């Protein structure tokens, strides 16, 4: 176990370093700059600004400076939101997206797992086909369509749910559903195929031969084995959903990190792009470690090394 932890920490540091370096130079290669808004500033102002933020220095120097600060945990200052530290922006925006995302993940798992298992049990029957039809649909429809349709139908037409901001629990409903749409569909498909595989396993027959009821053999013997692929998917899915979806946050006007991230890219807000990317990578690594640990807990055959 301790060897596993050391290994993971080292590989995490290397990964973060690579992500930071790659993002830095990719950003540098992409044309445009932070101060090229519609109202382009005068060349003098531009020069002053670039000097202020060190953008006039050679790229190598910029890079070392950035990395030095990064080592201290300082992600720098936003270029567009003057004076705001990137650390501070992430700290205020991330919880909004994370709360929303967490609700969506809980919804996706608690709907996806049972209906996927159910479809497997009813394999080939009408209900199975119905579930599969909807999950295919759920995976095929783009996120902005889902969000817009939900917003239009429940918010504009029926006027039963709020569509703007996150000021009450009711406000969560539409964005959470929109966020959960794809993962629910995906998890139910994953669960169905994995459940089908497990139902045919020899130990399921053993359970029956012992006199275990179908209900219990599903819950005790099948579920824990069948859930492994879902757990694998949950790692990257959590990381991406917790950092917020640009589309959903845009449609429902939510000041989350996802919205902010895309904004920072169009703005060429270099420190903010860097900071968010590194944060995302960090989250992804953490989630994958959690998945590994969950795997180990669920399946004793897995060795942590």
């Amino acid at each position, binding site marked *: 176990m301790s060897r596993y932890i050391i290994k993971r920490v080292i590989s995490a540091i290397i990964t973060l370093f690579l992500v930071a370096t790659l993002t830095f130079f990719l950003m540098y290669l992409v044309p445009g700059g932070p101060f090229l808004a519609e109202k382009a500033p005068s060349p003098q102002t531009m020069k002053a600004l670039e000097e202020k933020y060190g953008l006039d220095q050679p790229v190598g120097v910029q890079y070392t400076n950035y990395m030095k600060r990064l080592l201290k945990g300082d992600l720098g200052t936003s270029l567009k939101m003057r004076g705001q530290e990137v650390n501070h922006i992430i700290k205020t925006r991330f919880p909004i997206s994370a709360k929303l995302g967490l609700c969506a993940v809980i919804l996706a798992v608690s709907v996806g797992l049972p209906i996927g298992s159910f479809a497997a049990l009813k394999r080939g029957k009408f209900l199975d086909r119905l579930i599969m039809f909807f999950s295919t649909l759920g995976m095929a429809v783009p996120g902005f369509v889902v969000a817009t349709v939900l917003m239009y139908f429940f918010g504009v037409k029926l006027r039963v749910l709020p569509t703007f901001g996150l000021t009450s629990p009711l406000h969560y409903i539409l964005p959470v559903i929109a966020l959960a749409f794809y993962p629910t569909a995906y998890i139910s498909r994953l669960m169905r195929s994995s459940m089908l595989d497990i139902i045919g396993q020899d130990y399921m027959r*053993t359970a029956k031969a012992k006199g275990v009821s179908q209900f219990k053999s599903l819950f005790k013997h099948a579920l824990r084995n069948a859930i492994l692929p879902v757990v694998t998917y949950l790692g990257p899915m959590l990381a991406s959903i917790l950092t917020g979806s640009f589309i959903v946050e845009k449609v429902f006007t939510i000041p989350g990190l996802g919205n902010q991230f895309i904004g920072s890219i169009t703005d060429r807000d270099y420190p903010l792009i860097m900071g968010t990317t590194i944060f995302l990578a960090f989250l992804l690594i953490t989630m994958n470690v959690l998945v590994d640990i969950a795997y180990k807990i669920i399946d004793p055959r897995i060795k942590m090394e």
Partner: protein
Amino acid sequence: MMSNTLLDIKNLRLSFFTPAGEVKALNDVSISMQEGDVLGIVGESGSGKSVTAYSIMGLTAHPGKIIGGTIDFNGHRINEMSEKQMRKIRGKEVSMIFQDPMTSLNPVYTIGNQIREVIYLHTDLDKQQAYDRSVELLNLVGINDPEKRLKQYPHELSGGMRQRVMIAIALACEPKLLIADEPTTALDVTIQAQIIELMMELKRKINMSIIMITHDLGIVASMCTNIVVMYAGKVVEAGSIDEIFYNPKHEYTKGLLRSIPNIDSPSHERLIPIEGSPVDMLNPPVGCPFAPRCDKCMKICLKRMPEYTKISDTHKSACWMLQKEELERSKGVMK
């Protein structure tokens, strides 16, 4: 010794209704077994041995369906029982072990958990008693250091060990009947012998009967009291071990026995397949199913299914040769 009928299968017919058509897996299977018997069921792959075993457990899987006949076991009419009633019998009055011990235990639960499960299901033992019983069971099946083993997971045990655990689970509630479906096929030879020895030893300790499904005539010879020979979903011959080994009547049985070098010193020979291909169960022939591979085949064999000829109280066989002999004998008497 008075013996009671433990299992009586009468004219069992079972089909799988597949998209390709009806697979007639069992055609009029009748098997009877007395308490204390060790019944060997032999026959090539696909002859219906496992399907027969599952039907005794009430585990006929979709799309399989019993379409005729009766199964009486230990005072229960199995084929008329509900799933709920069957659950009380499975693992308690009749247990089953399977071919592949590597995959028959759930990889994510400990050995102890999987043994206790069956104890809790069928007895009122509390936690401590169930634990003691588990230790006792592992001792019984010859697993040393049971306290440690109970905490281990299946992957930490060898194949032979796992089959011993399966046997422990099967015997936890002292069933009347243990069905072993090719329990040693997946194990290597020395382990095979140990498992067979263990089963026989346990049979003596617990008063139970055994159905041994196997390809291995050596195993049959070493442990069975009676034999049922199956071919294409039919019982083609049944009898005591001596009757089958020393006085086989069906041409298929004779073929099987010919494929072992020496009957008296069975060296765990696998059945060498008899030439020709097995029967197409989707379109079974009207006559004797063995006819296409039988060198004694007569015209009548292709046209009509042979009836059983009773050779003794325990010995029967379905072959036209026997009917012919009988006919000639009775003609001789009339003359």
